[in-house]
């Protein structure tokens, strides 16, 4: 017995759909089996919340009088990219405020950047827009300095080229005698701690490991509002080795997502300051998975104990692309607070918030139950394990200049 998207959406419209969170689905499948679970449940809500680089907002400020073709722009002193059109600006999550001392005094604090601009905008705070231009006959204006507010912007779109990594590394410091400051947080010497970043069994792509239902056009919870999967994310790598359940043993799939910033909330969109590393944006994402058949019920029954992550040394191996993982641990091990690496007990810490992921899965469940959120049937699947798509390192080539 199988269901279609249309059938499930018809039930959602009539408020008759059975919607459960991914956490609840584990128990249902364990108690009743996948077949009965597939019959009973229509939608499983998955979610994740954590710092996600490769995020940013596209803002269209509306035209000035006289008109201006913005060449250079800053939002609260954070440079925004204006080389798209006249008044379209892209503010990237990892951009630093101009004049930030970065790592000149190590480790840098990175107190404000692109991620914080986006958070300030969704909080409804005024943001200072400064812009310069060379001036043309049709766009004569050369300078602009004004306050802007999200509600007044012509368009504001959160447009993140790579979010929701399917799985991720566990970071440790195996060789440096001092603490190292990485995007995986502060890693203390002699493997005093191990940091991980995934919602594990609640995470969207771990509940649909071969991308059967999550594809281009999937409607999602994005930053507290509604968004869409608009493409596979950059660095999407379905070729990563997988276990017998199809779950990748490392990184693998990613999502490019888009949504109207005006409907979002700072509860699920937060600027982050990663000591010694830089700034970014923490994003909350929720993805509904239609339980089309028994296979999808089985996929969404995945447990933390079925998912492993590679333990990677960030003092030498990661920065220099050397070596092999120091081991593999399950998310059940990581969540226990300690893992064993080479016989040593190492304290674990999470960078992704399970509490927020649970909150998002619950909210999305409520939206669907209320009939206000329909499932989007993908118009195109994401490249899957047999697509041939893989991850390429940059091959550097010498530049020969002709005289």
């Amino acid at each position, binding site marked *: 017995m199988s269901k279609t998207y249309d059938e499930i959406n018809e039930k959602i419209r009539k408020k008759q759909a059975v919607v459960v969170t991914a956490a609840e689905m584990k128990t249902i499948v364990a108690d009743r089996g996948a077949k009965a679970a597939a019959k009973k449940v229509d939608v499983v809500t998955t979610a994740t*919340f*954590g*710092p996600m680089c490769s995020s940013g907002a596209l803002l269209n400020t509306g035209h000035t009088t006289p008109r201006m073709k913005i060449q250079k722009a800053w939002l609260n002193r954070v440079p925004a990219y204006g080389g798209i059109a006249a008044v379209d600006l892209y503010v990237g999550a990892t951009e630093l405020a101009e004049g930030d001392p970065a790592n000149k005094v190590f*480790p840098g604090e990175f*107190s404000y950047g692109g991620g914080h601009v986006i958070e300030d905008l969704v909080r409804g705070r005024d943001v200072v827009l400064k812009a310069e231009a060379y001036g043309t006959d049709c766009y004569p204006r050369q300078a602009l300095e004004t306050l802007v507010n999200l509600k007044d912007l012509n368009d504001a779109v959160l447009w993140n080229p790579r979010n929701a990594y399917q799985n991720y590394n566990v970071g440790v410091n195996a060789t440096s005698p001092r603490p190292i*400051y990485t995007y995986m*947080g*502060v890693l*203390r010497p002699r493997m005093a*701690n*191990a*940091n991980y970043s995934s919602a594990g069994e609640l995470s969207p792509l771990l509940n649909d490991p071969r991308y059967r239902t999550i594809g281009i056009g999937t409607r999602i919870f994005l930053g507290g509002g509604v968004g869409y999967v608009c493409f596979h994310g950059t660095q999407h790598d379905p070729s990563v080795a997988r276990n017998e359940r199809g779950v990748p043993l490392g990184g693998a799939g990613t999502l490019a997502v888009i949504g109207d910033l005006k409907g979002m909330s700072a509860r699920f969109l*937060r600027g*982050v*300051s*990663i*000591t*010694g590393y830089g700034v*970014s944006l*923490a994003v909350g994402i929720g993805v509904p998975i239609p339980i089309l058949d028994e296979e999808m019920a089985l996929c969404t029954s995945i447990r933390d104990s079925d998912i492993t992550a590679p333990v990677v040394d960030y003092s030498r191996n990661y920065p220099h692309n050397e070596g092999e993982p120091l081991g593999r641990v399950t998310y059940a091990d990581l*969540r226990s*607070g300690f893992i064993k690496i080479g016989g040593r007990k190492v*304290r*674990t*810490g*999470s*960078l*992704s*918030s*399970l*509490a*927020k992921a*649970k909150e998002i899965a619950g909210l999305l469940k409520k939206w669907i139950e209320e009939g206000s959120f329909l499932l989007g049937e993908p118009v195109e699947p994401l490249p899957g394990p047999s697509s041939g798509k893989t991850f390429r390192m940059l091959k550097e080539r010498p530049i020969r200049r002709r005289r």
Partner: protein
Amino acid sequence: MIQTSAIFRFPKSLMDRPVICRVIRDFDVEVNIIQAHITPEEDGHMFAIVRGRKAAMDGAFGFLRDNDVQVILPAKNLVWDEEVCVHCGACTAQCPSGAFVLDPATAKVIFDAKKCIACELCIPACSYRAIESIGSRLGGKGDLP
């Protein structure tokens, strides 16, 4: 033996007198200085963990107060803003004393102020800047905990 966190505020008239040295020698208490900012011609402050017998501690704090040192015994060694916190748990991997832990039932961070030893390893590990040191509060904004 008892132990307490203490904040001392020194008036600038005391800058040339080694009052903490007197406290240690005359009252037999241990003073573990976590942070101090004491410069000539300015009021100074110190955040320390003080340990000793009850009678010795009472004597030491009495001596300091008699010498115009303001003694504040804060309820917490850190300021943790639960509203700013997203409950990721990055702090829990840094905390050597188990003051910051994740509650397995709710997946939320719990801070047990009594266990905090003011090592401040959690502060740079928090990407949301939800944890602030007593030292930064002493230097300016916000109430002491």
